[in-house]
């Protein structure tokens, strides 16, 4: 029998095809369903049991084992609580980044290697060179998921396989599933935060936090325009949910969760909505070594544009990126990921630009 691969199986199309491709390549595949979250939210039945049933159907078809690993405790501690804490403090986190670091390439990889796996595999759209720490963008630029992988320690990629990272399009992934009779090729893509699903973040946050009325203030004038129901519910660039009656469309430029104030503007050219630089903290490098100062391309959201920047390391954990052209301000707490060509170097957490609220301090 071939080398032993533990594959993270979600019940979706990508991991299903990954399983089939690994078997065809001669690996001995053991599929693991990570049960991260099974709580139902108001108006949303968590689909984990359905996802597990889909994963099981694929595994039975392929004749491989499927185990369910309960990862709810670490998922709650490192993803859900992290998300709640960030919002409470006016930051907008990327829970998927945390999930990859602590669950998929945390608990899952650790336990797989402890049980004797030669490799771990996932259905991520990403590429690597087993035996090296390198992480590379997927062949499919529309699906590339490397934005979510920047906090994974590179030594894990030495023993990781991304079986579908080289496939050019999602349509091709579906076609390859259909060819193999996996019976899953029509399952829709999941998007958004998996445990929140279609109810949306607002419902999720209000399941934990109380609404709290505060002022909506016009950034340019300091004038109170109306009220909101909790500054933690708002994020930079947001348009919806502002209770300020008629008038022009208004955009959130900043929130202050301590004072419970949301600052808005009606001017898309408002200087607070644009920036030429970002401060990064909590930086992490795939290779383990900070990247050299210099020119890189940066992405500040999943599959977002790759924008040229000049990067300077300011100390071990922090850095500074300067854009050639002004870019839209990004909410504090989001990830900025640095690329050198196809290769992911690492990234950091975007810090709030304190200058924006200077006039109100």
């Amino acid at each position: 029998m071939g080398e032993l691969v533990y594959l993270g199986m979600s019940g979706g199309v990508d991991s299903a095809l990954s399983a089939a491709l690994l078997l065809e390549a001669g690996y001995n595949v053991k599929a693991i369903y990570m049960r991260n979250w099974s709580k139902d939210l108001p108006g949303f039945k968590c689909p984990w049991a359905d996802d597990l049933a889909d994963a099981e159907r694929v595994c039975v078809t392929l004749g491989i084992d499927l185990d369910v690993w309960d990862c709810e405790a670490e998922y709650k501690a490192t993803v859900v609580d992290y998300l709640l804490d960030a919002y409470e403090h006016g930051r907008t986190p990327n829970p998927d980044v945390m999930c990859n670091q602590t669950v998929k390439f945390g608990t899952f990889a650790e336990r797989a290697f402890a049980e004797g796996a030669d490799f771990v595999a996932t259905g991520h759209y990403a590429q690597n060179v087993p035996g090296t720490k390198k992480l590379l963008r997927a062949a499919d630029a529309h699906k590339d998921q490397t934005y979510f992988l920047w906090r994974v320690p590179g030594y894990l990629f030495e023993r990781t396989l991304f079986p579908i990272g080289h496939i050019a399009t999602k349509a091709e992934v579906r076609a390859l599933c259909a060819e193999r009779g996996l019976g899953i090729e029509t399952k829709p893509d999941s998007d958004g935060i998996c445990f929140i699903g279609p109810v949306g973040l607002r419902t999720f946050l209000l399941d934990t936090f109380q609404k709290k009325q505060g002022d909506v203030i016009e950034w340019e004038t300091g004038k109170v325009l109306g009220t909101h129901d909790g500054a933690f519910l708002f994020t930079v660039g947001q348009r919806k949910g502002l209770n300020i009656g008629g008038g022009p469309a208004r955009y959130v430029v900043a929130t202050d969760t301590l004072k419970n104030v949301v600052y808005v503007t009606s001017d898309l050219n408002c200087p607070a909505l644009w920036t030429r630089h970002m401060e990064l903290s909590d930086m992490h490098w795939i290779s383990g070594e900070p990247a050299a100062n210099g020119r890189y391309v940066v992405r500040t959201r999943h599959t977002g544009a790759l924008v040229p920047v000049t990067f300077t390391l300011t100390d071990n954990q922090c850095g500074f990126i300067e854009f050639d052209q002004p870019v839209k301000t990004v909410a504090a707490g989001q990830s900025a990921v640095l690329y050198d060509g196809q290769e992911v170097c690492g990234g950091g957490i975007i810090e709030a630009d304190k200058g924006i609220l200077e006039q109100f301090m």
Partner: protein
Amino acid sequence: MHMPSVKPEHPTGNVYLDFAAATPMDPRVVDAMIPYFTEKFYNPSAPYALSRQVRDEVERARAVLAHAIGARPGNVVLTAGATEANNLAFATISEDAHVIVDAIEHESVLACAGIFSHKTLRVEADGRVDPERVAKALKPETELVSIELANGEIGTIQPIREISQVLAKERSRRLAAGETRPLHLHVDASQAAAYLSVNVSSLGVDMLTLSAAKLSGPKQVGLLWASDDVRLRPLVLGGGQEGGVRSGTENVAGVIGFACALALADETRTDEAKRVSRLRDQLQTLLCTEFPQMIVSGPKNAKLRLPNLLHVSFPGLEARRLVILLERLGVSVGTGSACAASKMQISHVLEAIGASREVAAGSLRLTLGRTTTEDDILYAAWAIAEAVKQESARVGVTWEN
């Protein structure tokens, strides 16, 4: 009948063996319902002749239903299925009441009981409720005892008549002692009605639940029969339909279909029970011969088990995988109750009869119905044997003696 060594001929290659979860509607039931969606669409409560006619037909259907259970039409409340009927039965008791249920009841009964001070009775290894246990569990505050006529997962038929006598004795005691608290026996007969008599007087019950969906009738249609002594309380408020107990415009087509389905079941019950039990026994024999260590759950005595149900376990195998393999061979079967299957927990019924986790995980529930044929049984037996052998080979389970 012998276990086929090669894939048997079958007219469609599709065999359905999950009649306890859902039954295909009888074409005669569908035909009876159709006019009420189109030309007879009227609201039974409207004042003109056309709607009055529909109202009369609903009442005639109610009379048919009542007749089939040996009751008067005025005591039948039509509901949206058995779960609602069970909820309605529990709505009759006072807030401080005590209730008695057994551990293998349907979720709708267990959930309702959970709201009150309650005793969940243990059952025997074959699922039977010992009437003695009911007697011991009775308290002066007990107002309701709710026991299924037959269990839908392992097929156990409960000694309702004996339990009814236990309650009668307690009622006499209360009367003599001047205690005024009522005590009623509620029986959910949803899974039983296709094959067992559901006459309310011979069962000696005070309330009875039925479901059309388990009788080749439509889903979301059921009834609660309550004796004159029971004071019903509405759960759904509004226009006061169903004597004020269940508001909402009548599900006319559904009620017509329900009456037709129950009347058909009544006509064929005895013959059908014999026919399916013979097929069930054939299936059981074929599988037992092939897999001697297979475990059959539920009562050994055929008289105490639903004639259309066979619950089997293949210890060491995962039933969820068997279901998928069987689905690929065209055979649809259940793994215990449909509700539990989606939650990936061990079924509360199997837990209650003391099945080990291994036995529970390897359990299939096979239920036959009106459309099941000998061809179906032969094909299903072959497919189950194939699936079990394939999985056994994969995980290294052997079936030799």
